[in-house]
């Protein structure tokens, strides 16, 4: 297979990509780099084939798929994330998103409804009042971010598996897919075994207070057995499905299972 090292004679394509990346805003840059699209896009722009690096990207993507399978295999549905005393709670608990707090969704409780779709018997939408009448439990667990930092917080809400039972979800389906109100449309798939884990929670309170805007008002899905980005905030819909629908970060290259 012919490989071209140069798009333009004398210009190293890697340096060219690097230079183009520098002028892109952060999010654009990440999306550009994601999943081997970078060289493909450049190929289209330059009208010239660049093969070598995208094959490395393809290999890495394959290994990541393999890692999904390995993690699914070693996932023990009965293994509980460690819980902590109230004194261990991290204060202040960090706000973290791909946007500033000022850009966080401002959801009106009165207008908000949780849409329930897909392989469920009862597709009715739920108001916040209806949801918060369901039995709630509090758990103090460690939130671990894909970036490496972690913080201990107290989350209160209804076990997701109880809700799935209540709406008659087909729990043999592969995923529960969440969509959120974040700008650019955040979404994330959760494998069914994790969705049914006893600690996976539809969260309405943080630190015994109504979930603040910073942490995902009106509803967050707290999954102590997953990295933070698999804990969607500002959730507006859930869909029980056998299809892998991708996710905001998953599509950009974060490992999809990302279990802890």
């Amino acid at each position, binding site marked *: 297979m012919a490989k071209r090292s140069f798009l333009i004679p004398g210009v190293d394509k890697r340096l060219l990509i690097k230079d183009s990346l520098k002028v892109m805003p952060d999010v654009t*840059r990440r999306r550009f780099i994601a999943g081997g699209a970078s060289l493909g896009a450049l190929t289209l722009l330059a009208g010239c084939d660049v093969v070598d690096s995208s094959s490395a990207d393809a290999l890495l993507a394959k290994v990541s798929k393999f890692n999904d399978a390995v993690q699914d295999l070693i996932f023990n549905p009965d293994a509980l994330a460690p819980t902590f005393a109230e004194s261990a709670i991290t204060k202040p608990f960090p706000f973290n998103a791909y946007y500033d707090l000022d850009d966080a969704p401002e959801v009106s409780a009165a207008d908000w409804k949780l849409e329930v779709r897909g392989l469920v018997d009862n597709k009715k939408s739920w108001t916040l009042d209806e949801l918060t009448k369901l039995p709630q439990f509090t758990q103090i667990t460690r939130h671990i971010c*894909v*970036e490496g930092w972690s913080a201990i917080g107290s989350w209160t809400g209804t076990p997701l598996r109880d809700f799935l039972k209540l709406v008659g979800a087909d729990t043999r389906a592969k995923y529960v897919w969440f969509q959120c109100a974040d700008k650019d449309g955040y979404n994330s798939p959760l494998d069914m075994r994790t969705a049914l884990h006893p600690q996976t929670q539809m969260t309405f309170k943080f630190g015994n207070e109504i979930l603040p805007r910073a942490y995902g008002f009106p509803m967050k899905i707290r999954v102590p*057995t997953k990295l933070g980005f698999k804990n969607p905030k500002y959730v507006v819909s859930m869909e029980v499905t056998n299809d892998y629908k991708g996710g905001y970060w998953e599509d950009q290259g974060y490992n999809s299972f990302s279990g802890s």
Partner: protein
Amino acid sequence: MSSLTVTEEHISAKPGKVIQPAWVRVMHWTNAVAMILMIMSGWQIYNASPLFDFRFSHDITLGGWLGGALLWHFAAMWLLMVNGLAYLITGFASGRFRKKLFPITPSGVLHDVRAALTFKLGHDDLTVYNYVQRLLYAGIIVVGVLIVLSGLSIWKPVQLYYLVKLFGDYPTARYVHFFCMAAICAFLVIHVLLALLVPKSLRAMIIGR
């Protein structure tokens, strides 16, 4: 033709002349590749949430951004772990560790450190490791085991909670992982420097003798 005969005689007359057997050489260089990929991608991952008041220069990291670095890190880890495990098993089973790395006595180490610092430490017989080498090679194997265990703790803190307990808690495991990386980098500097100072040791790790 005569030179070929000499070589064959040379080999058959001194079968013990192979300093580094093929399995050691293959695993050594596989480990070198895996380790460099792990360290460079690890630096990029570190940059996403630094433990200390510094970041690694983007020019020496791998992956471009956090997501890319994680892909590299979690791919190269298989190479590192499978190769490392095979190395440990073969090292123990073949008796190489016992023969080459032990015993390590404090007096022997002190003597050889002193000799090394005064440039009196000889390398005439490459088949025998001096006490400084024994200590460093045995030590880096321990660090290698620790960096994998702390890495697994960070990767799977719930499923492998007993490993996390070994280190205390999740944040501590992260620090252990970092300091093991620092120890390996320090080892690498000395290791590469000494290999260049004694080129025949480098040759032995490439062609065996």
